[in-house]
């Protein structure tokens, strides 16, 4: 059984079909890249899968169980968490408290052994993404790169089986990108399957074993990174047609 199975997912905004009849699946332990030009429907896809948008048709199955139409928080508690493309920290709360909110969710608190307090678990998660030094700072003073990592720590707080990352590398400098790549690899080894939407193909290709390409809401290619970079259709979409 696949971890996540998306079948014939469709979403229309008025006359625009943002996601058109897309099917794919994610297996346990994978890192899958999801790429496509701006407006290809990647974020819409995430919003549909995580319940923030209602799909027009199709099915989304997590471990064989249909999750389409459930409230976002219920989906999270079934083990499917996400981060946002534009960071959404809790600005009034200290960094560590941002993670604590996720640990307060039913699934997040389930994972806490009785001897470990929530605070300690939150600190561990911050250490995983390299933010433990900032634990007491209010989230509003964190730099953009830190906020990106905070998003990931917060999503991990719900102990997801599948993590959907929406442009985790956007706005990061090369050093930060390398650091984040390493943390993502560790997180993957800890047993969190990942789907990563990203424009920085260089960083993505290092992580992903499999890449899906969306264009105008349709899946146009799927395969290993080196196949995708040579795929004619993909090059056409990104670079334009050869004359």
């Amino acid at each position, binding site marked *: 059984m696949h971890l996540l199975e998306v079948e014939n997912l469709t979403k229309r905004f008025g006359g625009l079909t943002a996601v058109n009849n897309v099917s794919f699946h994610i297996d346990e332990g994978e890192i899958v890249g999801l790429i496509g030009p701006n407006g290809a429907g990647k974020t819409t896809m995430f919003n549909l899968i995580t319940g923030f948008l209602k799909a027009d048709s199709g099915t989304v199955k997590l471990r064989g169980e249909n999750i389409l139409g459930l409230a*976002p928080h219920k989906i*999270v508690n079934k083990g499917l968490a996400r981060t946002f493309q534009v960071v959404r920290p809790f600005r009034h*709360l200290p960094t560590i408290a941002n993670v*604590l909110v996720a640990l*307060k969710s039913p699934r997040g608190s389930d994972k806490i052994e009785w001897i470990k307090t929530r605070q300690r678990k939150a600190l561990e998660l911050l250490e995983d993404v390299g933010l433990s030094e900032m634990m*007491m700072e209010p989230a509003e003073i964190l730099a953009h790169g830190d906020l990106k990592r905070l998003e990931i720590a917060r999503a991990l707080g719900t102990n997801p089986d599948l993590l959907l990352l929406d442009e985790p590398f956007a706005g990061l400098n090369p050093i930060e990108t390398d650091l984040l790549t390493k943390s993502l690899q560790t997180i993957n080894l800890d047993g969190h399957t990942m789907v990563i939407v990203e424009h920085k193909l260089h960083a993505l290709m290092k992580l992903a074993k499999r890449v899906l390409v969306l264009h105008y809401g349709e899946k146009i290619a799927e395969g290993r990174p080196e196949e995708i970079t040579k795929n004619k259709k993909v090059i056409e979409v990104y670079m334009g047609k050869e004359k």
Partner: protein
Amino acid sequence: MRTKTVTTYLSKAYRRFALHILDIPSRLLALLLIVLFLTIPGILPSSKIMSYLLSVLITASVMAIFASSWDLLVGRCGQISLGHAIFYGLGAYTTALLFKHYGLPPWVGIPISVLIAAAISLPIGFPALRVKGPYLALVSLAFPLIATSIVFATKGITGGENGLPISVAGRFFQLTNIHNLRIAEYYLTFLLLLVSAIIIHKIANSDTGVVFVSILDDEMASKACGINVTRYKLMAFAISAVFASLAGGVNVHLLLSASHSDFSLTLSFFAVIMTVLGGMGTIYGAIVGAYIIYFLDMYFLRMVVEIPDVWHILIFIVPVIILVIKWPRGVARFVTDKLEDLSEERPLEERGKWIWKKYRRKKKSANED
């Protein structure tokens, strides 16, 4: 042997006390104020003006409970309610009716009416699940108006515009000397305020309180964290209703009547003014604001400079507007921030944390070990 354990226990208790209260200037100030408020009224000479001053402080304590309950709902959870008097009035009328018809003493009647108000807060909180921000504020304005209409419509039960007076037997204490009665009532309300403030503060700084702030900051991100936002919003409404109706119920047994003004818009706005003046989201700010406003309103303006009541709101509004522009974080928070800046031993990066001091202390004690 036995004395030794007692002394170690005492020294441990003192260390805790020193670390958690004496070491933090703002807490030390709060402690001094509490001690002051506990001692001074008891030794005041018995005179008419002093009795009046005590009754001002009694009302201030009741309003402080009301304002801090508003602060938990709005300052911490972000569910803007401009009709918070609905809970106050509910507490007042149920308490008065319970006393009038069943003769329940305040110790029984108030807890029952608090539970009733908490139950009614759930349908009242329901719009908060649908509308947000200014729209919720508009919807919340409607509830006290509905309640007032119900009071006027059911004159037979609620007394309509005449209010619902209860007999002298409804007093908390059966004392004939008015000054002693005021002193007893003062201590009762002040202790109630202390207990409520500590409970509200504990809730606001617990993990649940953190979830409340997350809803205030970004509801969508809260949902993405797996938080059942609906449940937490209703929880905030219920907790807030408990303390607001407690204030209303206590006030009935102090004034010996419930009236439609317990549902009034002025009362709702007073909660807003007091909290904003003191500092929104701090809980203690609401209490400081309530004392400042009531002391100025009922003592300074009425007794010292003798300005007619109709001018009071007008006189308040101007300084409040100036204060909000000058110190948007509130008077109380301004004072505590200044105090924290004065204490030199604290590293710079640890200053000005208004939420969650718990963690700062944990870190500090961890560093010491």
